């Protein structure tokens, strides 16, 4: 547990989350979500939860990312807000 | 002889009769046979209970628990037997009369009509024999629902609106009854009807008692037709006349006043009523209803409407008698149940006969009909005289006892109310008789008396009321019964 590292990741997490919600191009939002998941995995590993971090990296960043992209391609890429 | 199952059988017999009635919907004669059979059996069963009731004994039957500690129980006590005798006895006449009426008027959906009728009678007898508030609620609501198809029987716009009004009033009343019963249970731990009341050992604040009483008043007052909440009753006159006759002269409204007696005598108890000053409230309401209803009756041109307002007024006689909280008053009220039932059913039968025969509903059209329908109008005269309190018809004696009761309780105003309303009764019945006998009629050629199926019941009920006037104890000792009941409550 290194709290300085955690704090930095926290800030980036919040930033990526807000960006993912605010951009109008959904593909960017999806990429930001993948970054968010990846940062989260990093944070989990920093907290010593290696299993959770690994799972988050594989499932959250990997599989969900693919599914997200599929959805964006099957539907519309633009968002009004 | 073991009578313990008789109350249950008396309740069930007409309920069971519904099944053959529904099954034989294609064969009218067979269907009506079932109805009459059920009516006769029911009356016979009720009569079995009369000797015991005169001795003051009651037949109790505990069936199942409706709720923990709250059984579905029947108790044929004197008051219940008294009411059951009247209701089931008059059902026989009504059955015959109904057959004549629905066939004469060519009513539709006759099977539904007779089936609902049978259910109504079951519910009424159930109300008479209920041993506790929950059983009472059960039958009270069944009566509400079973009467609804009868009220809307014509399926006209007016009838449907009347049905809605009827449901709105009676369902609200039922809910208030539920709430009141629940409160009684929580406060006293019992919901059984006990002569003298269940509040004996319970100290309640005055307001709580007042609120509880008002809830009960609302609950039973709707069916008893006391004044601000009576308006469903004139509206429900849209129903066929036998329905008005039996249900709105005997079964439903009498269930209401019967409920008033139960509530005053068996739930609150006369002592509690007196000590909390609840009787006075009831006297005021009942007195006002008597006068106002009689006044409104003046303004009605429709015969059935006039009879309906007359009913509202006479129901309050009974309520007034109960509210006096004196033995004579109670006795008078109970006697007036029988008196009013026989008299008013006669009047309604007459109105129905006139309608079926002449298709006339309004009083202004009745000129000279005594010439074509002499028997009917004779019965009508007897009925109206009885209601006006002219001796020797039974209506006089109940009013006399009521007056005695109020003097017994050192109250003069109720006596004045009785006298004034007697005059008013004369005032609104006399013009009808006058028109029928003394004014020249128009367009009456070719009409005769109604069918015997209708005239015979009319005459029988009229004669019965006269006989009861002369010999109050002639049949079944109803007078002694009334005396015993009222004494048992004080």
């Amino acid at each position: 547990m290194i709290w300085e590292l955690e704090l930095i990741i926290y800030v980036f997490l919040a930033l990526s989350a807000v960006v993912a919600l605010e951009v109008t191009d959904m593909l960017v939002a999806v990429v930001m979500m993948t970054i968010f998941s990846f940062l989260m995995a990093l944070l989990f590993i920093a907290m010593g939860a290696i299993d959770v971090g690994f799972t988050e990296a594989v499932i959250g960043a990997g599989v969900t990312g693919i599914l997200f992209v599929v959805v964006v391609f099957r539907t519309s890429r633009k968002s009004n807000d | 002889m073991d009578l313990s199952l008789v109350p249950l059988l008396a309740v069930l017999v007409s309920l069971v009769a519904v099944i053959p009635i529904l099954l034989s919907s294609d064969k009218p004669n067979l269907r009506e046979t079932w109805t009459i059979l059920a009516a006769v059996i029911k009356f016979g069963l009720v009569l079995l209970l009369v000797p015991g009731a005169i001795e003051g004994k009651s037949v109790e039957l505990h069936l199942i628990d409706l709720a923990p500690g709250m059984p579905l129980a029947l108790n044929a006590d004197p008051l219940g037997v008294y009411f059951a005798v009247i209701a089931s006895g008059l059902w026989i006449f009504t059955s015959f009369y109904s057959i004549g009426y629905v066939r004469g008027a060519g009513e539709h959906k006759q099977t539904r009509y007779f089936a609902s009728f049978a259910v109504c009678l079951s519910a009424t007898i159930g109300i008479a024999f209920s041993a506790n508030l929950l059983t009472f609620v059960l039958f009270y609501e069944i009566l509400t629902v079973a009467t609804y198809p009868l009220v809307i029987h014509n399926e006209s716009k007016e009838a449907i609106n009347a049905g809605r009004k009827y449901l709105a009033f009676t369902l609200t009343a039922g809910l208030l009854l539920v709430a009141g019963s629940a409160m009684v249970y929580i406060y006293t731990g019992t919901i059984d009807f006990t002569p003298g009341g269940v509040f004996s050992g319970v100290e309640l604040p005055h307001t709580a008692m007042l609120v509880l009483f008002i809830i009960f008043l609302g609950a039973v007052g709707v069916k008893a037709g006391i004044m601000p909440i009576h308006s469903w009753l004139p509206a429900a006159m849209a129903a066929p006349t036998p329905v008005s006759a039996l249900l709105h002269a005997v079964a439903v409204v009498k269930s209401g006043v019967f409920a008033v007696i139960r509530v005053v005598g068996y739930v609150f108890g006369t002592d509690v009523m007196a000590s909390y000053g609840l009787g006075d409230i009831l006297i005021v309401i009942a007195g006002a209803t008597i006068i106002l209803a009689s006044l409104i009756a003046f303004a009605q041109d429709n015969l059935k409407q006039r009879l309906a307002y007359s009913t509202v007024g006479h129901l309050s006689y009974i309520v007034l008698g109960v509210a006096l909280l004196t033995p004579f008053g109670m006795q008078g009220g109970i006697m007036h149940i029988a008196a009013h039932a026989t008299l008013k059913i006669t009047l309604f039968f007459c109105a129905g006969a006139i309608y079926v025969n002449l298709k006339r509903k309004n009083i202004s059209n009745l000129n000279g009909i005594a010439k074509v329908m002499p028997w009917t109008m004779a019965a009508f005269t007897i009925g109206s005289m009885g209601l006006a309190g002219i001796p020797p018809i039974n209506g006089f004696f109940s009013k006399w006892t009521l007056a005695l009761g109020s003097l017994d309780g050192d109250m003069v105003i109720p006596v004045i109310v009785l006298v004034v309303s007697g005059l008013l009764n004369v005032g609104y019945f006399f013009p009808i008789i006058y028109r029928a006998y003394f004014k020249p009629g128009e367009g009456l050629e070719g009409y005769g008396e109604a069918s015997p199926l209708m005239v015979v019941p009319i005459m029988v009920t009229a004669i019965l009321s006269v006989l009861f006037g002369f010999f109050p104890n002639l049949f079944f000792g109803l007078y002694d019964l009334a005396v015993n009941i009222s004494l048992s409550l004080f």
Partner: protein
Amino acid sequence: MIESHLPAYIALTFLLFSVLIPAFGLWRNELSQPLAVIGSGLAAGFSIYGFFTYLQLGSIRYFFGGWEPPIGIEFVYDGLSGFFVLVINTVAFFVILHSHHIAKKEFPGKEMPYYALAMLMMLGFNGMILTGDLFNLYVFLEIASLAGYAIIAIGDKQAPYAAFRYLIIGTAGGTLYLLGVGFLYTITGTLNIIDMTAMLPQFAGSTAVVAALILMIVGIGVKAALFPMHGWLPDSYTYASSSSTALIAPIGTKVAAYILFRIILWLFGVELTDAVVPFTYIIGVLACIGILYGSIMAIAQTEMKRMLAYSSVSQIGYIIMGLSLANPWGFAGALLHVLNHAVMKAALFMISGQLRLKEGHSNISLFDDTYRKKYPWTMAAFTVAAISMVGLPPLAGFFSKWYLALGTIDNSNWLFLAVILISSLLNAVYFFRILENVYMMKPDKGQKEASDAKRNEVSGSMLWPTSILAVSLIVIGFANAVIVGVLLNIFPM
């Protein structure tokens, strides 16, 4: 031997069939529904047997993996969970039995996944009820919710959007519940309900415990459609396929109500719940608002399914109100209402499904006199269920209101009593309106006269379940003293 395994068997039967249905359904699609009937029937049998076993032997605790709690996870079959399991499985059995023709018409070719998901949803509900572990409850909650979203998404054109809204709000609720569990775990260090019940009184007054309570009530309240969180319910129930609605409506909100019971009366206990803020009273007031709101909105609807959906919002309020009274009468009334409402709503939604199947709509203003001729038994069942909903004796619906009324008076809670009475009247308004149409409305010109209408009753596989449910309403009404006698023994205080 079988007795000690019953809690697991009840849930696992559904799981087994949710696996068997795809295995056989891929081969022959039409086998799906019979298999689902067998599965739910078996589970219902186990539940009935289990409840009688409970009455004789007392609660059963089942330790998964052989690890005793608090180390492992247990299933607790006590009176409350046994009762709920009995109710939901029996009702589900009838609904699944009933759904054969509706499934064939409304989503042809999709029976296999539909029934597999129905089984999974029931597994989730049973697991939620039986489990004795707060996190395990979350897992089962998600199983049930996910399957529920999908089952709702099958139906009208609007159904997927309704399901999506339900998904968003439902998952958010589930997540808040999980956060509440997290708070409790951080404070006490255990997840087992029985274990935690013993510890929590020592943390009375802690803000975090209160926050956990709020989070859990909000999270579960979403699922239970507690008043301000009911928004998902009307749309979902209206647009979903008739068989889906009949399956979810009687069961889904009840299970959530069960969890509220478990949390407030068992886990926290009334004293701790009300220690800082009078939560039970607040919940009760919300339930009251919900009751009135649901009833009034139901009156405004012309579509029968939508009307019934709003009526569900109102009826769930009764259950929550009984919970908030926290006395034996209110408790018994609420539980009896769970049973009654499950049976009534299942019957009513099944009837609306039958009408949709035969007539293609369930619009109340189009009902007329011919319906009585065409569907005499359906309409008889409807009449019984409707009168029971209104709460007239001796039908079952009256008695739950009776006990609730006793409970409110026992607490001197006049507001709640008034709400019960008023809402009964409102119920009468919207049910008697339908009855009036069915029994008296003359058909429009151009349509057949009532006397000409041919009898067109639905087939036995639909008629029997409906009729049995309707008859059971009468039976429950007369037998309720027995049921309530058992329920009063369950009350924890």
